[in-house]
Every structure is written in C-alpha cells, then in structure tokens.
C-alpha cells in the first residue's frame, strides 16, 4: 500500500502540493487528472523522491517517511526501487543498447546475475513486442518503441508501483495506441499503477480510481463512473475543455 498524509510541497512562489491525503491501493490503476500546473508531476515525482516535499508522511511497503526530516540515502534508494518511473519523454540511456537499458538496474542496483537479468529483459521485450530490437541503440527506435522500452526498464526492477507521467503526450496517435495497449495489459495483470494522462478515454476504460487535482489540491477522488457520469460543475468544465 502507498499512502500520503498532509503532504505539502512549496516552490519559491508556488504551493505545488497543498495538504495532500491519498491512498493508492495495490493491484489497482489510479489515474491522476487535472489542468496544466495542477501539481500532477510534482505529486508523482514526490512518490519517487525526485522531489522532496517539505512536510507530510509518506508510507510505502514497510517504509514510513516524514518529509519534514532528513531521509537517509539508503532509504531513498530503497523507495526508488519500489516506485518505477516512466517519463513523458522516456529518457532512455542513449549510450546503452536496448537490452542494456533494461538490465542496467537489475544488474547494478538489484545485483542480479547478467544471465538472469538478460533472460528477464528478453521476456519483457517479448511482452511489448520488441524482442528484435535488443541490440539496437535507443535513437534507432521510434518514440512509441522507446516508450515501451522505458516501461520494460521500469518493470525489470520489479517495483511495487509504476508511475507514469503523461507517457503518451509526446506521441502521435498510432504510437500512443501501442503504448496504451501495454498499459492496458499491465492493468489487466493487476500491476499497481499511478498514471498521469490527458487521455480521458484511457482513464474511463482503465482507472479503478480517479483523482482530480487542481492548484495543488485534491478536488475529487472516486471511481471513473462517478467522475464521468456524475461530474461536479468544475469537473464538467474540465471535461468540456478537453473536448472540441
């Protein structure tokens, strides 16, 4: 289970997260929605400790962190292993082959043997339909392919939660579909996921829970059915703004 209590994150002139209280259930897909600047990325990045909020309690697995205190390096690394991250612009390591991109963490962080890591990487590559790219370098692949590889890279660490920050926003529609299909499969396999997206169709189909964020505050938390079929006025305006 992953839980946040009274989490606050302030930038110099901006209250990016304002008293966030949230629970993310295991084996579920939570979709984070909200207008630009709402704090969605900040929230995800805080879960992976790429950002450190000033206050609040963060519980994951058997770790409990108080953001108002220093976090030990060791605990930071452990929590990062529990929370895989998939970035909007995938951020593969350009100097490593596709296979090495996926095995880098398992070999050097989890200390798996090279053989084990590679066997697992090949299994993951098959899962996303890219087994024949393993010896290529990232810049020989399309954006959609690279994003699927970056999902493999996160999965290879066997994290408890995978965090997706607008994984398809930089992709053309047909490439987006390739990536969303992978996410759909992961959801069916009950992988715990937290997904920031602007794709409402995806949210409607996959989300076990939707969280609507605005100005660093949680404005709504509930099922996809409530969100889409019984929206508040604010959500209605948001949904209308997303269609044209």
């Amino acid at each position, binding site marked *: 289970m992953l839980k946040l209590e009274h989490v606050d994150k302030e930038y110099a002139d901006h209250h990016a997260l304002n008293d966030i209280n949230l629970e993310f259930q295991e084996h579920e897909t939570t979709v984070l929605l909200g207008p630009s600047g709402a704090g969605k990325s900040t929230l995800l990045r805080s879960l992976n400790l790429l950002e450190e909020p000033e206050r609040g309690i963060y519980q994951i697995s058997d770790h409990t962190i108080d953001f108002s205190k220093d976090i030990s390096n060791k605990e930071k690394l452990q929590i990062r292993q529990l929370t895989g991250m998939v*970035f909007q612009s995938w*951020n593969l390591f350009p100097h490593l082959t596709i296979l090495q991109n996926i095995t880098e963490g398992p070999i050097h962080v989890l200390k798996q043997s090279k053989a084990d890591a590679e066997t697992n990487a090949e299994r993951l590559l098959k899962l996303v339909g890219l087994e024949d790219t393993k010896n290529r370098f990232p810049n020989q692949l399309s954006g959609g392919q690279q994003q699927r590889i970056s999902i493999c890279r996160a999965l290879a660490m066997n994290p408890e939660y995978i965090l997706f920050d607008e994984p398809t926003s930089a992709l053309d529609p047909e490439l987006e579909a390739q990536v969303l299909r992978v996410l759909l499969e992961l959801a069916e396999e009950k992988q715990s996921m937290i997904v920031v997206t602007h794709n409402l169709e995806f949210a409607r189909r996959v989300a076990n829970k939707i969280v609507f964020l605005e100005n660093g505050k949680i404005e709504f938390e509930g099922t996809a059915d409530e969100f889409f079929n019984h929206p508040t006025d604010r959500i209605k305006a948001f949904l209308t703004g997303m269609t044209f």
Partner: protein
Amino acid sequence: MWDTIVKSTPEIVGAGIKYSIPLALISFVIAMVIAVATALVRTTEPKGSGITKFLFKLLKWIISFYIWLFRSTPLLVQLFIVFFGLPSIGVELDAFTAGIITFSLNTGAYCSESVRGAIISIPKSQWEAAYAIGMSYSQVLFRIIFPQAMRVAIPPVSNSFIGLVKDTSLASSITILEMFTVSQQIAAKNYEPMLMYCMVAVYYAVFCSILSIGQYYLERYTSRYIVTGG
C-alpha cells in the same frame, strides 16, 4: 646532412622518451584527476545547511580562484615561480617535480572547464532516469553521465593534451633536459640550428599526430551510439 640527423637523433629522441613524454603523460593524468574532481564540485549544488553548505561554497570559490589564476597568467611565468620563486620561501623542488606540478595545475585548470561543460551538457533527465531506478550518485556518475560526457569532452581535452605536449618545451627554461633543451645543446656544438630545431619540431609533430589519431578513434568509439536511421 644525413650524417648530422642520424647522429643527433638518438640524443633528441632519448630526451623525449626520458623527459618530454613522461612530463606530458604524468602531468596529463594528474590534470585529468584535478579537472574531473573540480568540475564535479562546481556542477554540484550544495545541500544541507549551515556549516557544510558554507564549506562547500568556500571550496567552490577556491576552485574558481584556482582556475582563474592559472588561466590568466603565462605558463612560463608559472614555471619560474614554482621552480625559481618557491625556494625563497623554503620550498625547494627538483626541476622535474616543479615541471609536473606546474603543468598539471595549468592543464587541470583548462580541462576543468572542458569537463564541466561536458557534464552540464548532459540533460538533467538522464540523472533523473538513473536515480529513478535506484542508482546511487556514484553509479549515476560513472555508468550514465561520464560515458555520455566523454564524447563531449574529448575534443577540447585533446586540444589541451596536445597543447601540453608542445608546452613541455618550456621546461627547457627550468633546466629540464627534455627534447628542446637537448636540441639547443647540440645546435650550439654543431652550428646547425636550422636543422636541429626543424628536427625537434618534427618529433613534436609526430607525438602530437599520434595523439590526434588516438583522439579520432576515441571519438569514434564514444560516438558509436549516435546512429541515425532505423
């Protein structure tokens, strides 16, 4: 003429092997250690608070001062200060040591800037992607950032290395018996300055050319992942 060339070659090349090349290689290795260490400090934002933050800022300031100092004064003057000047305040160094120290610090200052530029040219997103899979600072540095930064740093660092090789000829002024000193001595004896100085010029050029070839292959190797097209 052939006779003179054949006769003086062993002496000049011998001086190169005994002094010029070791001066250049040892100084370069030390310079790179200085360059990488100082560049890392300069590209790191101090965390924490109070005294550690202050000390870190102080260190950054000292490094900036060092780089400014060595880039703003002539190398020949630096050599003279270290070898002829320091004894007057009680620091006596043999010529070779003085040469190594000066060349290392001088080249280190230039390469520090090259390495810093290379490190900050790697997008922040690479650090984040590496941290996100649980890598430690040193793992990110050695496995993700340096291999990419090397590609960027090789041209300017090669420039400095080649410059250093030629600058070792300045060591003649602090009594080191390197190639140029020896060619001067021979010229004084056989009255063939034109021939001797052209010869030594050729030997410098040979050494520098070998480095250029090395640079070419190193660049090719570190750029192997920059391939275009599917």
